[in-house]
């Protein structure tokens, strides 16, 4: 049995844009940007390779992408389509190992130590995965694959050759490989950390490796130790395939126009609380903590949290707490609202002694059955008839799956 791990990182190239170009051959070879269902305030969730070459970046505002590249074709995102393709490629990965960690909607780690045996075996698996992807998803949907002794190195390797690349970094090649990278090529070192390192005189991986760990810990606390290990290509984190129970359930939403009145804000917040509560009930949870956040038009914000004793999973009850928390901090029009329920409990609920609460619980059960059968538009509160939440294209999860 091999003693060292062999990890694959599979990164789908320009994922949403590639799926659109696969579906619509007339878009192939053209600069396209996949955005939200409505284009005002949306960002480019994915730019095609052609658009990237001409300066469009992922997460760029749609108006900015159009300014940089007037010929860009803006395609409204189709999360259900991407969700199915994501399921298809994750099913392919599970043909090789049950240790598959979905890192994002278009990136996964695979621990292939047992099935690959060695790096030659890993290279064969990587090639088979690429072939199977073409068969199951289409010829236009490609992936870059990095192979390494841990997740950190495998991810950095997959970033090195795009599109459709395969980069293998054996354990003895790790330090040489890392020395050729910029600091920000490492997942976990963003612009802010890079600036702080720069202020310490550290601008390369070699300098980071040479820096005494005590100095890094002094500057970054426990993160300093992670930086020290990262510089040496060490990463003990497991490929986590377990469907761990969630720690919190939340929703946030940027509204098409800033919400001006408390009534509009209440409607928006109630809609979000209903979404959170539905997911809580569907997955058998109740919450004992509510956090709420508002971002204003000028991008400042306010947020608060409240813990309570009796667990709840009713949208209206969540809303009442959330609005009480949020109301005093609202000083200007609201651009974004977010609500999160945490300290989750599961298991049988204690039925209420009060008839009114028993009726509410019975109504919610009936509504949940409706929603399960006919989808999330099966019912709405009368007060929310004019409030619409469009599905987002980006994010870790697809809205229709949560």
């Amino acid at each position: 049995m091999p003693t060292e791990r062999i990890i694959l990182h599979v990164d789908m190239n320009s994922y949403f844009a590639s799926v659109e170009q696969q579906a619509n051959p007339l878009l192939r070879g053209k600069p396209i940007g996949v955005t939200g269902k409505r284009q005002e305030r949306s960002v480019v969730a994915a730019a095609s390779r052609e658009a990237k070459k001409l300066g469009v970046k992922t997460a760029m505002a749609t108006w900015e992408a159009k300014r940089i590249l007037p010929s860009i074709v803006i395609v409204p995102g189709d999360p259900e389509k991407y969700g199915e393709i994501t399921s298809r490629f994750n099913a392919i990965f599970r043909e090789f190992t049950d240790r598959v960690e979905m890192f994002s909607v278009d990136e996964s780690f695979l621990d292939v130590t047992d099935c690959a045996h060695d790096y030659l075996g890993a290279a064969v698996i990587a090639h088979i995965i690429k072939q199977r992807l073409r068969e199951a998803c289409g010829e236009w949907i490609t992936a870059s694959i990095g192979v390494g002794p841990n997740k950190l190195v495998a991810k950095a390797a997959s970033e090195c050759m795009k599109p459709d690349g395969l980069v293998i970094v054996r354990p003895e090649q790790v330090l040489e490989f890392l020395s050729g990278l910029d600091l920000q090529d490492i997942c976990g070192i963003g612009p802010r950390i890079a600036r702080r390192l720069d202020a310490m005189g550290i601008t390369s991986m070699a300098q980071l490796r040479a820096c005494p760990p005590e100095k890094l810990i002094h500057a970054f606390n426990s993160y300093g130790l992670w930086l020290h290990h990262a510089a040496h290509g060490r990463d003990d984190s497991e490929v986590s395939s377990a469907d761990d129970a969630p720690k919190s359930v939340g929703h946030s939403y940027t509204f098409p126009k800033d919400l001006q009145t408390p009534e509009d804000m209440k409607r928006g917040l109630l809609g979000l609380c209903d979404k959170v509560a539905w997911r809580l009930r569907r997955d058998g949870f109740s919450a004992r903590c509510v956090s709420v956040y508002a971002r204003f038009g000028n991008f400042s914000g306010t947020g608060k949290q409240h813990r309570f004793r009796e667990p709840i999973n009713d949208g209206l009850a969540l809303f009442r707490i959330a609005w009480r928390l949020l109301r005093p901090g609202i000083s200007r029009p609201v651009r974004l609202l977010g609500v999160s329920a945490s300290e989750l409990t599961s298991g049988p609920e204690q039925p209420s002694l009060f008839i009114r609460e028993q009726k509410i619980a019975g109504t919610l059960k009936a509504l949940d059955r409706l929603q399960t059968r006919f989808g999330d538009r099966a019912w709405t509160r009368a007060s929310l008839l004019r409030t619409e939440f469009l599905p987002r294209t980006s994010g870790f999860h697809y809205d229709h799956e949560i």
Partner: protein
Amino acid sequence: MYETLNDPIDVLVTFAQNRVQPRWFRWNGRNYQVKKVSLVHTAREGMKRVFYFSVSDLTNFFKLKLDPDLLEWRLVELYTDGA
């Protein structure tokens, strides 16, 4: 440019190797031959599963929707090159 539609259409299909393939469809009084099926995917509408076929006649792109409960086809998206 993209156009979102929801028009009922008549479709001629073949069933082969456990797959359904649209071959021709009639929309707005015109027949269109499906030259390429680029992607087939499904979506849930509550407990119902509907099928989407991304197809082209090499000039236009169409997204066709099949509701297997109603055996009903609809043209839901059209893309044509140019303005």
